[in-house]
C-alpha cells in the first residue's frame, strides 16, 4: 500500500481563455470517487488557499483524476500557471455525498459553463442505469462551451445554447428546459449544475411542473470535511452543510439568494487580489517578451 504525497500533473489543456483542464495523479481518489463528488485542492501547504473543485472524470487504472476549472481569482490563476510534470502538493477527496443515481425514466441534465464538467460523470451514471438522457449545454459564448463532444456521444438528445447566439441556439438554458417540461412525456428528474443564478432559474423553471430538480452547490469552504461551517446554506429553512450534507440538494428548497450573498463575502478582497494577479502576469509576460527580444 503506497499513499502518494504529491500529485503530478500528467496533462494540462487550456480549453478557452479562462478554462483549464488538469489531469493529475491521485490514485486513491480515482478509485474511490463517485459521480457528484468533489476535491479540495491546495497548490502548496504554506500560503496557498484550499479551494473546492469538481471532479470531471477519473481513470482508476491510470490512477488519475481530471478537473476542469475557470480562473476566477488568485488561487485558480496560480493553479493554472502549473505545467505538465509539475506537482500540486495537496488534494483531498473525494468529498461530499455521491449523486443518488436511479432509473427515473427521463432525465434532463443541464450544464452551464464549467458546470458541464461535474455534470458529465453524473450524466454517464444516469445513462448507465437505463435513463433516457437529454443534455442541455449552455455557455455565455461559443468559446466557453465545454464537454460538447463527450456529451454528444452519451446523450439520447443534446441541445446546445449560447447567450450570444455564437453557437447553437441563442437562448438561456431555461428556454429548452421549459419546453421539455411542457412536452409529453415530461422529464422525471432534472439535474442542473452551473453558476448559482442558472441553477436558481432552472429550479424556478421546473417548480410549476413539480419535477424533481437536483442542483450541485459550490460554496466557500475551507476543510471540506464538516469542521468549519463556512459552506452552510439554507435548504427548506434548515441550515445544511454543503461539504457533508451535499453538495447536491433539492433545487426547489435551496435559498439561492442567501447562498449568492454568502459567496460574495470576500468579493472585494478577491477582486483586488485578482487584479494584482493580472498585473503580475502582465509584468511577467512583458519580461518574457523582453528577454525573447534581447537574448
Amino acid at each position: 500500500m503506497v499513499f502518494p504525497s504529491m500529485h503530478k500533473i500528467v496533462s494540462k489543456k487550456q480549453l478557452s481563455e479562462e478554462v483549464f483542464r488538469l489531469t493529475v495523479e491521485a490514485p486513491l481518489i480515482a478509485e474511490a470517487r463517485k459521480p457528484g463528488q468533489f476535491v479540495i485542492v491546495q497548490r502548496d501547504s504554506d500560503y496557498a488557499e484550499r479551494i473546492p473543485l469538481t471532479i470531471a472524470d477519473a481513470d482508476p487504472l491510470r490512477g488519475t483524476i481530471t478537473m476542469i476549472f475557470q480562473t476566477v481569482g488568485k488561487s485558480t490563476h496560480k493553479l493554472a500557471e502549473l505545467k505538465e510534470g509539475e506537482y500540486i502538493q495537496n488534494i483531498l477527496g473525494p468529498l461530499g455525498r455521491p449523486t443518488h443515481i436511479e432509473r427515473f425514466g427521463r432525465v434532463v441534465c443541464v450544464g452551464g459553463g464549467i458546470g458541464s464538467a461535474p455534470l458529465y460523470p453524473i450524466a454517464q451514471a444516469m445513462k448507465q442505469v437505463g435513463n433516457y438522457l437529454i443534455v442541455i449545454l449552455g455557455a455565455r459564448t461559443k468559446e466557453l462551451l465545454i464537454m460538447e463532444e463527450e456529451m454528444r456521444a452519451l446523450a439520447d438528445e443534446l441541445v446546445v445554447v449560447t447567450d450570444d447566439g455564437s453557437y447553437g441556439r441563442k437562448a438561456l438554458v431555461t428556454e429548452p428546459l421549459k419546453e421539455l417540461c411542457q412536452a409529453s412525456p415530461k422529464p422525471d428528474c432534472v439535474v442542473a449544475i452551473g453558476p448559482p443564478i442558472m441553477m436558481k432559474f432552472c429550479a424556478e423553471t421546473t417548480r410549476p411542473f413539480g419535477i424533481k430538480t437536483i442542483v450541485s452547490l459550490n460554496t466557500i469552504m475551507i476543510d471540506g470535511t464538516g469542521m468549519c461551517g463556512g459552506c452552510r446554506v439554507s435548504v427548506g429553512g434548515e441550515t445544511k452543510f454543503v461539504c457533508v450534507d451535499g453538495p447536491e440538494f433539492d433545487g426547489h428548497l435551496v435559498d439561492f439568494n442567501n447562498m449568492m450573498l454568502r459567496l460574495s463575502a470576500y468579493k472585494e478582497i478577491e477582486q483586488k487580489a485578482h487584479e494584482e494577479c493580472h498585473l503580475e502576469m502582465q509584468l511577467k509576460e512583458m519580461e518574457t517578451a523582453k528577454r525573447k527580444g534581447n537574448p
Partner: protein
Amino acid sequence: MIDTTKKLTPKERLAIPPQEMPAQDPMVRRRNMEEVALGYTEEQAHLEALRCLQCKNAPCVASCPVRIDIPGFISQIAQGNYKEALSILRASNLFPAICGRVCPQEVQCQSTCTVGRSLKDIDKAVSIGRLERFAADWERFHGELEVPPVKPPTGKRVAIIGSGPAGLAAAADLAKEGHAVTIFEAFHKPGGVMIYGIPEFRLPKAIVQREIEVLERMGVKIITNFLVGRTRSLRDLLEKDGFDAIFIGSGAGLPKFMGIPGENLVGVFSANEYLTRANLMKAYDRGKADTPIYPAKRVAVLGGGNVAMDAARMAVRLGAEEVFVIYRRTEKEMPARVEEVAHAKEEGVIFRFLENAKRILGDEKSRVVGIECLSYQLGEPDASGRRRPVEIPGSEHVIQVDSVIVAIGNDSHPLLLQTNPEIAVDKHGHINTDETGKTSMDRVYAGGDIVLGSATVILAMGQGRRAAASIHKFLMGK
C-alpha cells in the same frame, strides 16, 4: 533572602512568593501573533520549584489526567536537573511543551495542591504547568531532541484517524510498544486543533511541529490529505490495507450555531472557520496568504469558553477596534480558563455578561450591521449547580458590530456515521466506547472529542493513551 542551598522547611517554602509568568506587554502583543506568555527564567523556575512541599500523598498526581509524577519532576527542576525533569514528564506525557501551555492546571493538578490550600488561595498553588513548560522549553533551547526508546517491531499495524491530541498520544504509546503506526490526517498539516484552532500566540506552531517530529523519529508515519470514510473506508483499512486495529480520534465536528435569525448573513462565522482561516491558513499574514479573512472593525463573539477567548483575541490581533464577548451568565460561570480571560481583558476585549444574542441584523447586501441582545439575570441553580440565567423581558438592545463569531461548541462529526453505520453512537452522535475505549466495531477504538464531545487537549490525550493500552493488549493477546 532565602538560602536555597540548604534543605528548606515547609514554612520556608510557603514563604517563597509565587513566581509570576513574564508576558508580552498587552499593548504590544495585541498587534502581533507571537506567544503571549514568555516562560519562566531559570531563576524563577528554581524558586517556584522550591515552593513545592514534596507531599508524600501528592494530591496533584491524583488530579492529573495522565498521572505525571509531579513532585518528582519539580524536585529535579529545584536541583537544576532539567533533563531528568523532562524524562519524568515524558514518561507520562510525550507532549510537555504543549500541555504546559494549554492544560487547565487550575482545575486539575493545581486545584488540589497543598501549597495553594495552606495559603488558602488556589492562585497561590505551585505553578505546575509553568514548570512543565519550563522543562520542555529548556530542552528546546538547550538540548537535543530526546526521542523515547522504541521496542523491537511487533509486526502489528495500527491506523490512527486524526492527528490531534488523542491521535498523537495514542500513536506515541503504540509506537513505543513497537507497533507500526500510521496516522491519517484530513488536513494538509498534522496537529488537529493544536494547529487549526489554538492560535499561535497561545501555542506556537513550531512547538507542535517539534513534538510531531519526535513521533516521526519514533517511526510513526503521517499521511495527510486522507479522509477516512471518503478516501478510504474503515473497513478498507482493516481488510485491504492490512491494519490490525484502528483508533478513531477524529475530533469534534460541525460547529454549533445559535439557531437565531440572521446567522447565515455575510460576516457571521463559526469560531472554527475564523480560527482556521487565521491559524492554519495563515490569513493573518495578509501579504503572503491567499486565504482571505473578513475585515471586521467591531466584532461580537458569542460564547464563554476557551475557543471564544481565542477568537476574540485573534480578532483584536487582526485589527478589530472593538471586540465584545457576549455571555449569558456571569464571569464566575464562564468555562474559559481564568488566565485566558485575564489576558483577553488586558488586550482590550470587552466582556458583556448577562446578555445573549436574539438575532443578527444585516443591511440590504445581507452584511452584518448589528446584533440584538437580551439582558439576563441569574435565577435559581439548575441541574449543573450553576444559577440559571433568566431573560429580562423587554430588555432588547442593539450592539453595532460588523462581524459575529459563534463559539458555542461543536456537534459530533457526521461523516464517520454516514459512512460506517456499524459503529454505535449515542443520541448526540458521539461514538459509544466501553471502558477500554473499544467501539462496537471489531478492532476499532475511539477517543477524544468524537467520544467526549467538546473537551480539552489533555483529556483527549488521556483517552488516546487509554485506547492505546487496550489496543496493545488486544494485539499482543492475539
